[in-house]
Each structure stands twice: as C-alpha cells, then as structure tokens.
C-alpha cells in the first residue's frame, strides 16, 4: 500500500471535516475489510483514512424510545449479532449479518461498510431494505436521511456526495405478527459471494397476508425490490402456494448478468426458489418458530 495518513476523530463532525479537508482523497474507514484490500490492490486510492471506530455514536447499537433500533454505521457485525434483544427481534437482518465473511471478518466488518461498498451482492442490504431501514448521512452541508432501498445506484456506486458519510441506520420497530428472513444461495455454506440473495419481511393476521416486502441481491446492478410480487401477496392466504406464486412474479424484477457465479437463467430461477423459501421462513418465525437458515431443511 502506498503512503497514507490516518485520522481518528472522536465526533461525526470532525470526521466530516477530515474528509472535507482531504478534498476528495479521504476515505471513511470502519472495519477495513473492503477498503484496505482495495487500497492494496490499487482499485481505490486515498491520501487519508478517516477511522470512524473511535466515534461513540458510530459504534453503538441501541433501541430508541419509539421502539426503532439505531445501529452506528461502524458497529462490527459480531457485536450486532451478539446484541440479544436486537437479534431476537430481527432474525432476518441477523441472517445476513451472520454470513458476511468468516468469523474474523465479522469481528471488523460493519453495515455501513457493506452498504458503502455498494456491491449488488452485499449480504446485509436486501434484509435491511425489506425491513424499511433508513440511513442517516452526514456531510459538510448537514445531515439527511435516505432509505437503504435508494442508497445504491450501481455496482460500487451510491448517493454519497463528497465528504459525506453514513453515520447510522434506523431500523423501524417490527409490526405485530411480523418477521423476516435473508437467504443467500452459494455453492458452499460460508465464505462466498451470493449467486442470489433474497431478504423478506411478512406480516400475517389470521392466516391472511397483510404486508410483505421482498428485496433481491446479485440479480441487478444494485439490490432491488420485487414490488409487484409483494403487492400481489397482500390479502392472499399465508401458504406455500402463495409464496411460490410470489416467487414466480418476483423473477420479473431480476435482470441478472451471467458471470463465473452463474448464468442469468439460473439466477432468475433461483429468485423464485429463494423468495418462496424466505417468505416461508418469515412465516414460521412470525408464528414463533426459531429457524436457523444455515442448518434448516427449507421447503
């Protein structure tokens, strides 16, 4: 890696000031599991790394009085999944957090980093979108809020302007009778990049679907919502047949490429399978069942 300066500010305002002072040559640095590799390989450049991990607000996870949860953008995955009340309330988000790299990566990697790398295959993003998560962005002109669903604009691209950073995520309180899931298809069980990823949330009352949200990863230039499929589910019975039909409709939202991880036709097929299984798992969970998606025999 070429020479670089390091700053470890204690406040978000100081971090923004450091990024502004770097005049486009500063990079926010959370877990470093992407940025350090990119700097070493020369795919990204920076003169200054601005470490966000010394900023208390950026490494905290807490429930707000409203019932929503706020997660600092630099909070490492291992801490998110070991925060029991959050993990129990949001198993769908934990499904993604649990498989972002191996254990050593999860000791460092953060939701903010996963989002800002803006890979179409990012494992945390589909579930965050399905749960209506919003990010707080802070920059030289103040702060703004952006839904995670509108954050990425293409592979490696997002809505951040120069010297802006993602400070935190707000994840709305779960509605009653609701749960979620994230499933990833890879040829093995750990340490791989999604061929397809699917995050869902589901609200069911008396066996009728009241709300549904489906987000897909690795099948478009950015994570996408399968809105038509989700809308179709409203009012339908919460059955495997409904979920299978939703999976068929969701395939239309997928515009995948063919690459070394799989041909486009295969990815489109997988969308249907994962949407069905993810919705079914969401249903089992909202009915009180604990489902470990890595070891469960899914329908």
């Amino acid at each position, binding site marked *: *890696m*070429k*020479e*670089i*300066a*390091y700053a*470890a500010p204690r406040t978000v305002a100081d971090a923004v000031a450091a990024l502004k002072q770097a005049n486009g040559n500063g990079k926010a640095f959370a*877990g*470093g*599991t992407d940025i*350090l*590799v990119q700097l*070493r*390989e020369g795919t990204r450049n920076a003169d200054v*790394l601005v*470490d966000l*991990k010394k900023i208390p607000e950026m490494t905290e996870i807490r429930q707000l009085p409203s019932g929503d949860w706020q997660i600092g953008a630099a909070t*490492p995955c*291992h801490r998110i999944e070991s925060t029991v009340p959050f993990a129990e309330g949001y198993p769908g988000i934990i499904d993604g957090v649990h498989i972002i*790299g*191996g*254990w*050593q*990566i999860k*000791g*460092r990697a953060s939701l903010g980093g996963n989002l800002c790398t803006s890979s179409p295959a990012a494992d945390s993003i589909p579930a965050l979108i399905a749960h209506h998560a919003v990010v707080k962005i802070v920059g030289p002109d103040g702060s703004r809020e952006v839904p995670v669903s509108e954050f990425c604009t293409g592979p490696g691209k997002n809505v951040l302007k120069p010297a802006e950073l993602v400070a935190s995520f707000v994840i709305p309180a779960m509605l009653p009778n609701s749960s979620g899931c994230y499933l990833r298809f890879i040829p093995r*069980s*750990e*340490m791989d990049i999604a061929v397809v990823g699917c995050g869902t949330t589901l609200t069911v009352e008396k066996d009728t679907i009241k709300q549904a949200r489906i987000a897909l990863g690795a099948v478009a230039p950015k994570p996408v919502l399968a809105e038509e499929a989700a809308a179709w589910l409203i009012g339908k019975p919460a059955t495997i047949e409904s979920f299978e039909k939703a999976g068929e409709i969701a395939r239309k939202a997928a515009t995948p490429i063919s690459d070394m991880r799989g041909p486009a036709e295969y990815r489109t097929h997988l969308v249907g399978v994962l949407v069905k299984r993810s919705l079914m798992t969401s249903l089992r969970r909202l009915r009180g069942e604990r489902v470990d998606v*890595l*070891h469960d025999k899914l329908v």
Partner: protein
Amino acid sequence: MATKTPVSTTINGEPVEFLCEPRQSLLEVLRDTLHLTGAKEGCNNGNCGACTVILNGVAVDSCLVLGVEVEGAEVTTVEGLACRNELHPIQQCFLEDAALQCGICTPGFLVAAKALLDKIPNPTEEQIRFHLAGNICRCTGYDKIVKAVQHAAQEMAK
C-alpha cells in the same frame, strides 16, 4: 520518508511500544517490527485466516487491521498461547492428532480455535466448522483439525 506514529499496546499480556507508518498492517508490524513471526501472511486480503490474532477479545485477520489502530488495545498472537514450556491444550492436541501438514495455516487455526473455545467451551462439530470457515488449509482436508479442536475442548474441560 513517511511519518511514523508511536503506538502503545499490550501484546500477549506484555506492554509493547512501537513506531509504525499508518499504511502498515498489524500483521506487518507483528512480523517485521516486533519479530513475532507466528502470524503468517497467506493472502493478505482477509480470505485465508493465517494471520488471525485476537484483538480485544475478538478474532480478526491482522492483515486487515492497521498497526496504528491497536493503540491501547490488547492483542493475543499464537506466541501468547503456550505458558513457559507448557503447550496450550489446543497446540498439544493439534500435535497429538496430526492436525497439520505443512503448518502455514496452523497459527491461524490455533488462535481462531482459542477464540472459539473462549466463547463456546464445548462447541458442536457444526459450530467448529462454522467458526473456522475463515481459516483455509490446503493440506489436511479439515477433519483432523476439527477433531483436534474437539479433543482440546475435552482436555480443557477436565
């Protein structure tokens, strides 16, 4: 010449001070500055786990940590496992169960296994395989490693 930053930290229970450039990884500092060459550089991009150390109680790839970041931290490397002339039970079981061939990945596996057994003293085979998925071995096929960790868990429970 890049500016070097003084860093005070604790490594294997001992206070340590070193100078490093901000671009240097913790792995580079451990190996090249502090001559703790137990942690190995395999891939240098967070895939292989050969450089695993425990940082403030958490297993991490030291190639993906900057040296300047460990100011005030507690670091455990493979050199910190054995106690004087006594091997750590995990090391002893790796030896007895032949859980290594070329040995390059071994320090990373030992440290990751230590972090695992600190967190889950009696892990299932699935838990062992899940937690060691970030460590790559190209010789053993993993079975002997998993068995050695199970064996170590039994020894440590005695």
